[in-house]
């Protein structure tokens, strides 16, 4: 395992992100979403777009209450990121495409030790 320093935790507040160059996996985005950390490779499996530059939000999921009711879209529980090039949405918790689990972006472990955020690769 390789440990890569990302940033002091004080520089990565909720809503912040950092991009880290690594030898093994190229550029990796590290995200603080409401106090939880996530890391994914900055390489969309669709066309190689900069997925880590995309909008972070919640997954969008559907709900249907019954016959004659309009299906509605609402926010799910998991954080998601949208590749800005073509809108492919990935669940930040496991890197899977929100619409098709067989497509995914590699994810990595994030640890915080002694006030510093690290990637464990």
């Amino acid at each position, binding site marked *: 395992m390789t440990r890569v320093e990302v940033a002091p935790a004080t520089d990565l507040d909720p809503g912040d992100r950092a991009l880290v160059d690594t030898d093994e996996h190229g550029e990796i985005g590290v995200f603080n979403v409401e106090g939880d950390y996530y890391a994914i490779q900055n390489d969309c499996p669709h066309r190689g777009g900069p997925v880590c530059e995309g909008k972070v939000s919640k997954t969008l999921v559907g709900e249907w209450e019954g016959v004659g*009711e309009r299906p509605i879209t609402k926010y799910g529980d998991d954080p998601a990121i949208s590749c800005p090039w073509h809108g492919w*949405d990935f669940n930040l918790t496991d890197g899977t495409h929100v619409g098709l689990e067989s497509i995914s972006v590699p994810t990595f472990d994030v640890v915080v030790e002694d006030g510093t955020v690290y990637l464990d690769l």
Partner: protein
Amino acid sequence: MVASAERPAGGSAVTDRRHTVVDVDAHFLDTSKDLAAYMPEEEPWTERFEEARMDMLPNPTPDLYRGGRIRRDDVGYPVDHDDVVAIQDHVGFDKIVMIPMAALLIASIQADDRRPELLAQGFVDLMLDRIVDPDAGIYSVIPAPSTDPGAAAELIDEYGQEDGIIAACLGAEGAEPPLGHHRYDVIYDAATSADLPVIVHGGGSGLDSFHRKGYANWIESHSIGFVQTNIEQLTSMVMQGVTEKFPDLDVVFEESGVLWVGSYMYRLDQEYLKRQDEAPLLDALPSDYVRDSYYFGTQPLERNEDPEYFRKAMETVGIDRFMYASDFPHWDYDPPSAVDDLGIFSEAEKEMLLGGTAEEVFDV
């Protein structure tokens, strides 16, 4: 009968006697006067239909016969039970599903009146009274007026268990909003409760009433119309999650050929991956839903310019998703022999295409 269903012996072989043949798309010509005889007397529209000096069904403006250059004296619309039996014998349909022309036209009635439901009800009563005969392999459908989903659901509730009624049928042309809209849920719910599949029959030809105005000739509108309207409705139904809402519902698209389905379902997939939140009920790729819950009548079978391509195009959807359809008695109908003529199917696949799949889906 309107024209002879008989054909002189010695014509080119159109039948396929080696397999059970189920034709899932033969047409019955119903006029508004015919249907009026089966409408309620207390309904004012009934006397309007009875007294009409011109047929009061909507009518596109096709030049089917190219100024008399196309002639099909060998085929004609059946108007009674014996006609249908003669057609079955002549063409080799062991079982035949009669689709009303009215079902394809009532969706074009946009005025806020009762014509769609009355015509649909009149058609079912007429068919049950004069034509439908499961013992002879003659079946029909409930034309479900998309303009009034509540009335359509009531018709399905009322007639869905009648012996020989094997589907609800929606016209693809004219159904606005498209058929994935939640206003049609009641139709799919009723069909599911009656254990009936839904047929969506393509439409759109002629010139003056075509969606896009200004095509020069029928060759253009007829090339695109039936495929276009089926593509529109398939897109809406798949993306809006009709299968997720009604997982037991089978949907059969008719009269748009076979080769477009595979390529188009992959187009839906690439769109879905970019905007899946806009199809919020889907849990899988659109193509997975197409392969699992949708079927396609084969007519008009395209020319087999490349056997390998043709077969692959059907395989990618699943050969078991297609079922033989004739479009009899229209001038461009496909006889059962058209399936064998493609030269790309095993005997088991021909058995499935010509009848096996339809027998299973329609429970006939």
